[in-house]
């Protein structure tokens, strides 16, 4: 769907832009629509109600409210437009240059922007009035300068990010000039946020402008919405209705602009379908396995039968796991291999009951140490997590809470789950760190996650998984994010812990080398299904399923090295 189509189908965008168009048209056509001059006063008619030719009645000086409203709109909107143009003209180019080239200009512009942002706008405007005089257009230029940092910061931030994108590097290597890179790759990214920001800032500028007029900053008789509100406020006791029209005009205009901004955000950034209500997802019925125990006897530690996992609802639902059978016996290491998107991580998450937002188990049975966990109430499930099943994630860094020390993250589950005292929990945590081969446990215990290396963080996560003595470990690509030398150490650690504690392990990985290193049995997944299960030796050496064969053949371990380079034949030198 194109942007225009999305805009036309978004009711909020259509309604707010229609309202704005109406207001702007009425203001532009003021001389036609209002038959009286905004300054023409009929003294006897002060505070008089509506009458033919004067649809909204008269103000305190006997002037026509309708005419003042339309003409005032011109001044109010015009003022905001000046501010907006100034802000755009200052903020966007400086943001582009600062974000793209950085260096001294960036430092300077950034400082200037922080300087301006630290100034309270209203007070500066009042001071400017003292200095520059009560000319509204001039004050609107000042207002434009004051709101320019909002554009500068927006553009600079986005451009600096785009600047670091690989596709910009690729364009430079392709021989494109900076101008062309900015025009092609950078502007296309900042366009939408700028449009959104324009609507937002326009709303704010109109509000501030009206505020100034309300304070009586403007130059006397020219009608504006703010000045009309001020006048109405002075006569609040006599006729509160006078506040209604300028208030409504101002409120509707600002609200329409901000609503348009938020609708444009949805339209331009194409957020896709709204997130389904997670509560609704939890109420969905789970079907029992359709193949009652055809896959043989069920293992005592973990047994999965006919597991299906779906994302989304109704017709748009996507099944990512379809009928998986899997068993892990006590003390057994089972590998779950497959390519990205094969559903192996989703299977692991279903066992732990921690599927991401929108995902749910739709069919099947999962027995963990004899307990059926599909449909198990959250509270009882929680009792299994940590104590019976534990989880080692893939990305070591993103799986530690950056706000807490490593130690407090280890101590917390021990205290909550085992009810230990702080002292006992600390002792235990230090002991766990020692068990995962950390040589200086006290230092690591007191560190924050950003102060330790990735390999160290993965050891900490393994220690955390061990903290409540689980029987079953679900390890989701536990070494994928690590360098090979660190990977070898972590694999050794997992092997040792598994042997010492007699752990059952479900090891999700795409690396057949890791499977060969650690696993007793292996299940191969393709497109949400298990296509082959068997002993590691058999699956890796004598695969039965064609897909497994493709996987095994793609391994480069035994390929012969490329033969030495030979000089290309030299062309004969023409005589």
């Amino acid at each position: 769907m194109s942007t225009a189509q999305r805009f036309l189908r978004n009711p909020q965008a259509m309604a707010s832009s229609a309202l704005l168009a109406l207001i702007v048209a009425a203001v532009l056509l003021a001389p036609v629509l209002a038959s009286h001059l905004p300054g023409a006063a009929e003294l006897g008619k002060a505070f008089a109600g509506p009458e033919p030719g004067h649809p909204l009645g008269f103000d305190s000086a006997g002037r026509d409210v309708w005419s003042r409203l339309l003409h005032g709109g011109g001044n109010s909107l015009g003022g905001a437009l000046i501010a907006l143009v100034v802000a755009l003209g200052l903020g966007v180019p400086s943001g582009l240059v600062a974000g793209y080239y950085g260096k001294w200009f960036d430092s300077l512009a950034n400082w200037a922007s922080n300087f301006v942002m630290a100034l309270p706008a209203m007070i500066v405007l009042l001071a400017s009035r003292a200095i520059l005089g009560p000319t509204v257009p001039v004050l609107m230029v000042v207002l434009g300068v004051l709101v320019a940092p909002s554009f500068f910061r927006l553009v600079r931030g986005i451009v600096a990010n785009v600047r670091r994108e690989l596709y910009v590097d690729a364009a430079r290597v392709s021989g494109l000039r900076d101008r062309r890179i900015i025009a092609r790759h950078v502007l296309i990214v900042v366009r939408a946020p700028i449009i959104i920001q324009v609507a937002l800032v326009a709303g704010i500028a109109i509000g501030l402008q009206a505020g100034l007029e309300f304070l009586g900053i403007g130059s006397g008789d020219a009608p504006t919405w703010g000045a009309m509100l001020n006048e109405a406020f002075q006569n609040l006791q006599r006729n509160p209705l006078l506040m209604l029209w300028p208030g409504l005009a101002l409120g509707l205009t600002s609200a329409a602009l901000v609503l348009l901004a938020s609708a444009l955000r949805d339209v331009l950034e194409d957020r896709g379908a709204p997130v389904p209500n997670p509560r609704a997802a939890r109420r969905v019925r789970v079907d029992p396995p359709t193949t009652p125990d055809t896959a043989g006897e069920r293992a005592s530690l973990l047994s999965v039968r006919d597991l299906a996992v779906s994302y989304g609802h109704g017709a748009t639902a996507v099944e990512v796991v379809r009928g998986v059978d899997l068993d892990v016996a006590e003390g057994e290491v089972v590998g779950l291999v497959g390519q990205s998107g094969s559903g192996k991580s989703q299977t692991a998450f279903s066992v732990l009951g921690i599927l991401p937002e929108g995902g749910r188990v739709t069919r099947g049975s999962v027995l963990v140490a004899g307990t059926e966990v599909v449909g198990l109430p959250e509270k009882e499930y929680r009792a299994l997590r940590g104590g019976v099943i534990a989880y080692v994630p893939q990305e070591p860094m993103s799986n530690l809470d950056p706000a807490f020390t490593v130690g407090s993250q280890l101590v917390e589950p021990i205290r909550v789950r085992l009810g230990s005292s702080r002292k006992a929990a600390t002792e235990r945590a230090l002991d766990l760190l020692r068990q995962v081969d950390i040589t200086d446990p006290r230092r690591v215990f007191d560190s924050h996650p950003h102060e330790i290396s990735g390999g160290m963080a993965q050891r900490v996560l393994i220690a955390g998984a061990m903290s409540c003595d689980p029987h079953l470990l679900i390890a989701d690509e536990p070494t994928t994010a690590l360098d090979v030398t660190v990977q070898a150490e972590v694999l050794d650690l997992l092997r040792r812990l598994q042997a010492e504690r007699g752990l059952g392990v479900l090891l999700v990985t795409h690396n057949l080398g890791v499977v060969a290193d650690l696993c007793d049995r292996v299940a191969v997944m393709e497109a949400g299904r298990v296509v082959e299960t068997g002993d590691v030796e058999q699956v890796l050496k004598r695969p039965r399923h064609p897909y497994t064969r493709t996987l095994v053949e793609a391994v480069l371990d035994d390929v012969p090295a490329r033969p030495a380079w030979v000089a290309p034949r030299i062309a004969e030198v023409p005589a």
Partner: protein
Amino acid sequence: MSGSALSDPASARILDVRDLRVSFPGKGWRAPRVDVLHGVSLDIRPGETVGLVGESGSGKTTIGRAVLGLVPVSGGTVEFRGERIEHATGRRRRLLSRHLQVVFQDPYASLNPSIPVGETLAEPLHAQGMTGHDARRKVSDLLDRVKLPGDAAQRLPREFSGGQRQRIAIARALAIGPELIVCDEPVSALDLTTQRTVLDLLLEIQQQTGVAYLFISHDLSVVRYLCHRVSVIHRGHIVESGEAGQVTTAPRHPYTQRLLLSAPVADPAAQRAHRIALHRRRIEETA
């Protein structure tokens, strides 16, 4: 003329990096600069693939970026086709782009998500002054060469899989017939089977066009498959260089040996042997 130039062994190198140093500003105010490369040297001959193997933070990617002019060089020389380019900027760099290209690791980040594939491929052509019908024909030619359907040009990158996107990135690098392509981990973000097909595509293109590759990777087995020669980099130093067969199967430097033993192999018995050898090495190292 070309014959006499190429028969001279010194000028037969298409890329010659000598004692390259790169440093980055330190974190925090007035922090000293951090050296990433402490004088590395390597060279590539026409039509040759040289592998550069190292772990994260070793500086391997920085070498590639320095050659491409994407990071400032603080010392040493980079000679490309007999021309010193370590401080080349602006116009000279743009002229170089004819001969020197890149394929990045991340096929998702290296293509602008909001620009159709065909326009991305036409970019380097436009930069060289080719336009209109010629450019369009060349784009469909390129897509054909990397085995993508002809209608791919009108589609956006998000409609392609990781492997297909990497083919697009390769097509872009090939657009103006370069003599050297820097491949920065081009297959490490791909699945095993896709990895193999992309490597085979790179081999095939090299046989057809005689392009040379600087192939940066963390994976010794990938490098063994694709490269003629290999250099191993560790903490900004090149610790070992040699023929691919020797470095990736019988390395001499202890670090390379450890690297080789650490990578698990997909054969339980062989991996057991690997593991035992690695343990023995660790005991020897600590003793």
